[in-house]
């Protein structure tokens, strides 16, 4: 029962897809009121989001019996799931009136959107690599279809196909990486792999090649999903060709989910202390990708003339900043940089708002959004122009908008992680933001300071005189996005706190299922693990972790650890769940003295 309750957000999202499919069938084929399907989708996803943030952050208090080892639900997952679901809801609202304009059939579209969000939830919440792969595929396959959903347009079809082919390649890499990891550790769940890799630290160098290759493959696959250079090539073409609500979804939800999994995977699996001796530590690879991504994204953004392509390169550049944030973990705590979730939140709000405005302007089957089409927007549609202004300035990182607070906190945290050596990379990132200003301001230049060229007859629409789509749901979505950008910039406190607690939960600690480290535990739930004999590796990790923590974090983490230990204990005793017994004495294996001085990455 607890399993069902805890899965509720995922079930609601999936149920929304099924409901929309049914409603689509029930309503007539050419019902002009198909727009309500979008509203239903948005409502369903919003409910799922609310369930996620209410149920999941406190989840360790529950007992998850059957799905233990399949799904992890905690504050981290709740944060990113809510972000993904909200983006999905926004995309659904944006699509309500966009689809008829573009001649896209709404029923299938909204169904696919809901299923894609379902997949994204499973992807984010996965506790083992198979579930993760499954989630990724459910999410991605739906998005491939969504990108190509405008069948009348060769442009969109090409985008969908391109994304599909390359995405298939990336999935293959991921699968390869999973296989290698399994080969190296004999485990498929995150915590087990982490324990396995840590255990292999003392073994011969040949054993380390396998996980290293796996790391590269996983990085390539995840880098593809978050559009990191050099795996980004599909991004501008697909963002440009896909219907704009889908673009918003890809730039927001898919990227957020990708980053959630990327950071959890990298931090959980590859932050073992044993990696220092290898030629390429995961940290080096991440840093290289981060710098390359932000530089290439911004430089190429400068030469674009199409708003959607500019925003595509902007999203690539933002992936670069985020990778830098994921890279710069605090060496003491090894937790995720607490600026990352907030940055993603601010980025997603702004980018969804910006693409939302673009989707409202792309009327009458026009995907082409060259900059001159924005000319005079501030006069024709002052509200749309204002939303664009807020969102673009937020993306550019100008106060008082969310993007600024995001960048500020992210860079601050990167600096705090290692003040001496990270300053170079923060300077690089800030210089990149400066370059980015050029293309962001170009958008605003056209929207606010350029008069539309005087044209006659049929060219009117092409030159930017086409009326914007009138759509209350879409206006609500972009309005919320713009207000969120403002809110995050002016009153960031609440969301910063949420971001901090999400970040602190990002790393799945091996002690969650330390007992599963043994290959015998591959089938979770079959045998209830008794407290395993203390493995020297685990105890050392625990000791290192304990030593490096500051007092405040210590308190909360200990609480959580205690809760988890309670749960483990309760599980083995089959005691009644749902209540939180008082904190027991720590199991003896945690009290083992530190063996060796293993530290650093």
């Amino acid at each position, binding site marked *: 029962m607890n399993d069902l309750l805890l899965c509720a957000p995922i079930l609601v999202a999936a149920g929304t897809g099924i409901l929309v499919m049914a409603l689509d069938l029930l309503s007539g084929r050419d019902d002009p009121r198909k727009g309500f399907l979008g509203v239903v989708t948005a409502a369903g996803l919003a409910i799922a989001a609310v369930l996620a943030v209410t149920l999941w952050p406190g989840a360790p208090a529950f007992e998850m019996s059957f799905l233990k080892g399949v799904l992890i639900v905690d504050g981290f997952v709740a944060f990113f799931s809510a972000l993904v679901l909200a983006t999905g809801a926004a995309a659904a609202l944006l699509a309500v009136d966009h689809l008829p304009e573009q001649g896209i059939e709404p029923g299938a579209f909204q169904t696919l959107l809901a299923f894609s969000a379902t997949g994204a939830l499973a992807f984010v919440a996965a506790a083992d690599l198979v579930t993760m792969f499954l989630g990724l595929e459910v999410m991605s396959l739906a998005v491939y279809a969504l990108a190509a959903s405008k069948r009348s347009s060769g442009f969109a079809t090409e985008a969908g196909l391109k994304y599909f*082919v390359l995405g298939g390649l990336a999935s293959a890499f991921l699968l390869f990486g999973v296989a290698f990891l399994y080969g190296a550790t004999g485990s498929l769940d995150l915590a087990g792999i982490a324990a396995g890799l840590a255990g292999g630290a003392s073994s011969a160098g040949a054993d380390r090649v396998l996980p290293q290759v796996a790391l*590269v493959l996983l990085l390539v696959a995840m880098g593809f999903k978050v559009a990191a250079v050099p795996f980004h*090539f599909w991004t501008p073409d697909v963002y440009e060709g896909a219907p704009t609500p889908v673009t918003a979804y890809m730039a927001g939800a898919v990227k957020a989910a990708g980053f959630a999994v990327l950071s959890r995977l990298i931090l959980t699996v590859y932050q073992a202390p044993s990696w220092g001796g290898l030629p390429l530590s995961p940290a080096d*690879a991440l840093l290289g990708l981060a710098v390359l991504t932000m530089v290439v994204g911004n430089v190429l953004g*400068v030469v674009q003339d199409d708003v959607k392509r500019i925003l595509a390169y902007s999203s690539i550049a933002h992936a670069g900043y985020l990778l830098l944030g994921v890279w710069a973990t605090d060496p003491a705590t090894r937790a995720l940089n607490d600026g990352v979730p907030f940055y993603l939140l601010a980025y997603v709000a702004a980018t969804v708002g910006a693409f939302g405005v673009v989707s409202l302007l792309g009327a009458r089957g026009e995907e082409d959004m060259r900059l001159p089409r924005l000319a005079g927007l501030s006069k024709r549609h002052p509200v749309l122009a204002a939303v664009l202004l807020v969102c673009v300035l937020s993306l550019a990182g100008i106060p008082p908008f969310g993007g600024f607070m995001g960048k500020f906190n992210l860079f601050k945290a990167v600096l705090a992680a290692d003040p001496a050596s990270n300053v170079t990379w923060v300077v690089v990132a800030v210089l990149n933001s400066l370059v980015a200003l050029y293309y962001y301001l170009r958008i605003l230049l056209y929207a606010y300071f350029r008069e539309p060229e005087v044209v006659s007859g049929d060219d009117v629409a092409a030159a930017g005189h086409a009326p914007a789509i009138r759509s209350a749901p879409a206006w609500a979505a972009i309005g919320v996005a713009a207000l969120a950008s403002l809110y995050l910039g002016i009153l960031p406190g609440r969301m910063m706190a949420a971001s901090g607690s999400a970040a602190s939960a990002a790393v799945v600690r091996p002690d969650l299922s330390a007992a599963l480290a043994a290959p015998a535990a591959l089938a979770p739930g079959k045998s209830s693990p008794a407290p395993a004999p203390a493995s020297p590796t685990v105890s050392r990790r625990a000791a290192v972790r304990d030593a490096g923590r500051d007092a405040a974090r210590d308190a909360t983490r200990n609480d959580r650890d205690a809760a988890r230990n309670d749960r483990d204990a309760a599980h083995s005793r089959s005691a009644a769940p749902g209540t939180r017994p008082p904190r027991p004495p720590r199991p003896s294996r945690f009290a083992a003295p530190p063996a060796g001085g293993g530290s650093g990455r």
Partner: protein
Amino acid sequence: MHALVRDNVGTLLWVVVFAPLAGAIVNGILGPRLKRGTVSLVGVGAPVVAFVASALATWGLAGREAVSTTLFTWIQAGPIRVDLSLWLDPLSAVMILIVTGIGSLIHLYSTGYMHGDPSYSRYFSHLNLFLFAMLLLVLGKSLLLLFVGWEGVGLCSYLLIGFWFDDMAKAVAGKKAFLVNRIGDFGFLLGMFVLVFWMEGSLDVPALRDAVDMGGGHFVPGGTGVMLVTLALFLGATGKSAQIPLHVWLPDAMAGPTPVSALIHAATMVTAGVYMIARLNFLFALAPTTMAIVALTGAATALFAASIGLVQNDIKKVLAYSTVSQLGYMVLGAGVGAFGAGVFHLMTHAFFKACLFLGAGSVIHAMAGCQDIRLMGGLGKRMPWTRATFLVSTLAIAGVPLLSGFFSKDEILYKTLALQPASGPVAGWIGPLCFAMALAAALLTATYMFRLYFLTFSGELRSHHAHPHESPASMTIPLVVLAAGAALAGYVGLPIEHLNFWEHWLHPVFEDGAARFVSTGSHALEYGLMGVSTVVACGGIALAWALWRGPLTHVPAKAAAAAGGFYRLVCDRYRIDELYDAIAIRPFQALARVTHRWLDAFGIDAVLVNGPPRAVGWIGSIVRVAANGDVQAYAAALFVGLAVLLWLVIP
């Protein structure tokens, strides 16, 4: 009733200041949508309300030294604290009565003068805003607040000189006025900054006065520091009150509408410099050297401007130079320690010069915009009211006995000779020299003013295009009121000890400053000088009559020919503008051109601003070749990335 007013002076002061601001806001924002009558009602109503409040506040002040009222703390930064406080003492009471009283009349006059103007509401909005700033200047308790008003009137002056900004010459005149004033403002600011340090944060005038009274510290009589500070402040006064060497903007400022010239560039704003010196009399009196420089500047300006006034042919230019000259008298009065006399002349001058300017406006109105007095003549018959009021004011400014100008000018002349610093004169010749220049200026004043009068109103009309007519009542009523003031205002300051209400009223303000001067004069000297003044005034009038109306009309042309180069020099206003152009403006423009071309256009724009984006764009255009839309190429890139990473990984 008196008790009620007495208790509410503070509130009244805020009414005084904010009524014009409210008028400015209403007309400024809603003006274009309001009916012309409503605009007039708001525009004239605001100063009238302010005037009534001023009169009540002054009544409520009677018997007390000062009333202060604070709205809120404006600036609080470390030790520096500036409150938004108003300060009403006898001096500011006089000033607000002049500003709002004459201001009301000029606003009324404007409803007639500006009747057909398309920017009617903008005009009244700016004029009301000017009143607000001027009243803030006068009532500000802190020097900083005074400076806010100082800049505010400068802004309004700029806006109103360039009121018809589509005429390039007028727009340029406005800019010139603003820029020349900035030079003076620089001095004012410098003086204030030093004072802030000396005062450890407070710039309140009463606090400053107490500090000076206490003595010690930096406030040493005759000290160098005080001298430099007062000189810096005086530089501000020369800018605002158009004294040598910063007088050049005022004649050009006549480009504004004539009522503006009357209000801002004759009666009120230009006297701000004199007001500031009078306000800080206790400080200036500490520095005899500064005072000598002030006196010499004033006297020289009085003579210099009067000589130019003699050869001008534009009716407003004559009055402009006359204003510069009369401001010289006021500054002279302040410079010799006769602060009361300086402010007295300020007050009488406000009446007769406002009347003269409005009369000139009436003439220009009648002549359909023509301002050249060589084309006028014989207007007296057609414009009896204008003529009569103009004549009264001309007599007053010429210094004919029993009219206001006589009393005020004579008092300045007398005190120039009689007063000297208690610590001894800086140099013995300064007093007599100033007196001589002022007396010569008095002669010239009578001459050029009556030249103006005769050429304009008597004889026969020399223009064949104009059809002069008397102006409407809205214009003649203010003329009559102002002429009455010009005739009678002098009687508040009769040169008889117990009848001199003026000195008595202002005594508390100037007590400290005046105490540092001793009088060496006597009643005999005073009455003797009255005789001299009378002779000079009548002589000047007679000269003007003879040269431009009577038997010697051929002489001026001959004299001009005889004087040759000097005559042309005077006609060209001593070529001061050309001098400034050569030594300041051209070098500065050259510098600006070089800076613009090399530092800004090349260094900053081309290299620093556009350089990096170009470079980035250039790199981008090369890199973008990779993004060619080809799926196979993209997939290949994926593999290349994977290969590179793997190559790095495999040991």
